[in-house]
């Protein structure tokens, strides 16, 4: 039997392909077998692209056979959050309203990764339209946390995180509007990054909240994170908000030297709301950074307590407009037997959207409606400015900010579905980052007593992903433990 590659990282696969010790086809087969073996439990994939993946792998192999050089991600198997448009297969955002939808174009990030020779294994699960923190809002299935199948993987990119951790792919793409990459990365135990707003093109990302959304990677280590960021970052003329700022080589930025770094600990994040075990994990992680020569100081982000209110006003307002287009006219679901257009709209939307999506659309419509705009939307935009200013001031004193990614480890499926507000409050540590537009990543910082992963969140200055990755890399190299693999088989 051929070697099982499924636990390999991207750079290990690249070495193997480069030295001819494996073919891309073997590697892809290995992952397809792994998916077959474990996805019945994890339920990360909503669409598996077996033939397409094998064809992409063959392309890499034939390049190698012809003696051509390949890029560092060529032949590396990826999974794609179903919120990204792909010409191949379907793009549904795990919503009934987009069931069977076929995008006529590839998202810019998909194009770039395809150029880089990546092998796409398929699309993975998410909260419907990326609205949620547990992936329970998917219309397709509930994804399980590979470490404990009774628990959620986090969300909204739960499928992307679970697939990486369950070795059902090497890396995956997700989207992060209020923590949807970092929180599941923390809850499942992998590396996940939300780049600076404008760093990665949003073209082909089905919009949830346009001023907050960013695409980012999930990987098994920081080295792979840098490789993916090297490919997907940079200006795209199809996205007016993608920044025309040079992209450094992130791989070259990974040095095990953080003696020039000052780490800020925001006092507002270390309160009683933080689970004591999580607090202890973060404290030991910070000690490791300190031991490697980083200076640690306390900083203040005084408007932190307002972030959730601001976030749920802005994201629902934008979503109420972004989701208006799913109306049964040009694509997607149309309710049967309707007499006129108005009935078509109402039935299509009411049947097509899940409960959380409807709730957010109504909330967003309300905060924009006549008479309430100033009290909610405008007010939120002003407080948003204050939140950004908090970060600007904090970054006068430090290079990175270290916080927990989530106040608690993964919770049980169904535990929070009854109370939307409680679910919203679990985003407390990730949301401000999207409001300020700055980059953030989550790196595993150990398992709790009950065997669930926890995540260290590192936040950086705008467009300074390189420093963020360097600190995460140094931590990863020196943390002195490996969280290992979930006991799936």
């Amino acid at each position, binding site marked *: 039997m051929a070697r099982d590659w499924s636990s390999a990282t991207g750079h290990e696969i690249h070495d193997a392909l480069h030295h001819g010790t494996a073919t891309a086809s073997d590697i892809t087969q290995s992952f397809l077998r792994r998916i077959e073996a474990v996805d019945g439990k994890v339920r990360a994939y909503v669409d598996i692209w077996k033939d397409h993946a094998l064809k992409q792998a063959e392309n890499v192999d034939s390049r190698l056979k012809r003696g051509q050089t390949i890029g560092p991600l060529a032949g590396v198997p990826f999974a794609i959050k179903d919120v990204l448009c792909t010409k191949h297969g379907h793009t549904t955002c795990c919503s009934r309203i987009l069931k069977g*939808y*076929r995008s*006529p174009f590839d998202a810019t990030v998909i194009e770039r990764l395809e150029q880089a020779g990546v092998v796409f294994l398929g699309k993975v699960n998410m909260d419907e339209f990326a609205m949620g923190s547990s992936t329970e809002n998917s219309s397709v299935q509930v994804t399980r946390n590979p470490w404990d199948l009774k628990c959620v993987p986090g969300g909204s990119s739960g499928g992307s995180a679970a697939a990486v951790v369950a070795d059902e792919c090497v890396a995956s793409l997700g989207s992060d509007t209020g923590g949807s990459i970092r929180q599941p990365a923390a809850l499942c135990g992998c590396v996940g990054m939300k780049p600076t*707003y*404008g760093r990665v093109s949003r073209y082909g990302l089905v919009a949830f909240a346009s*001023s907050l959304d960013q695409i980012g990677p999930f990987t098994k280590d920081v080295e792979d994170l840098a490789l993916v960021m090297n490919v997907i970052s940079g200006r795209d*003329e199809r996205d*007016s*908000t993608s*920044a025309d700022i040079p992209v450094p080589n992130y791989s070259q930025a990974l040095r095990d030297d953080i003696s020039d770094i000052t780490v800020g600990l925001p006092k507002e994040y270390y309160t009683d709301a933080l689970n004591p075990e999580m607090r202890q994990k973060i404290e030991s992680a910070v000690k490791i950074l300190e031991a490697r020569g980083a200076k640690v100081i306390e900083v203040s982000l005084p408007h932190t*307590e*307002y972030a*959730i*209110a*601001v976030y*749920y*006003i802005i994201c629902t307002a934008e979503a*109420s407009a972004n989701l*208006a287009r799913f*109306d049964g*006219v*040009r*694509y*997607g*679901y*149309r309710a049967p037997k309707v*007499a*006129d*257009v*108005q*009935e*078509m709209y*109402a039935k299509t*939307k*009411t049947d097509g*959207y899940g409960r959380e999506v*409807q*709730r957010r*659309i*109504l*909330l967003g*419509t*309300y905060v924009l*409606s006549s008479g309430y705009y100033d009290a*909610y939307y405008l*007010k*939120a*935009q*002003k*407080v*948003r*400015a*204050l939140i*950004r200013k908090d970060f600007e001031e904090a970054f006068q004193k430090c290079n990175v900010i270290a916080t927990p990614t989530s106040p608690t480890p993964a919770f049980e499926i169904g535990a929070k579905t009854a109370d*939307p*507000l409680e679910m*919203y409050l679990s985003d407390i540590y990730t949301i401000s980052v999207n409001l*300020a*537009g700055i980059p953030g990543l989550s790196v595993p910082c150990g398992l709790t007593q009950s065997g669930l992963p926890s995540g260290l969140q590192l936040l950086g200055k*705008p467009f300074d992903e390189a420093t963020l990755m360097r600190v995460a890399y140094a931590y990863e190299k020196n943390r002195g433990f490996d969280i290992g693999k979930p006991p799936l088989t």
Partner: protein
Amino acid sequence: MTKITKADVEYVAALAQLSLDEVTKERLVGELSDILSYMDKLNELDTRDIEPMMHVLPMTNVYRDDVVGPSLDRETALMNAPKTDGEYFLVPRILDIE
């Protein structure tokens, strides 16, 4: 305290083109009231002199040149249409709802 009424829920549902049954409306009155009450927290802050943050990035003037590029062929454009005659997207009768 109820922050919003059933009439408010009905009003925004009409704007959003959602048709809600009575049970759902009642549920939403409660849920949305809770969330909106939580948002009242923002009133603690005096923001009179604060410029609202419309964009994250300090970018202006991003344009494209006025050059025609390829369009989709019609078959592709209509590929996902729930109903079409091969030329147009077909929709049921349009009452005067504008």
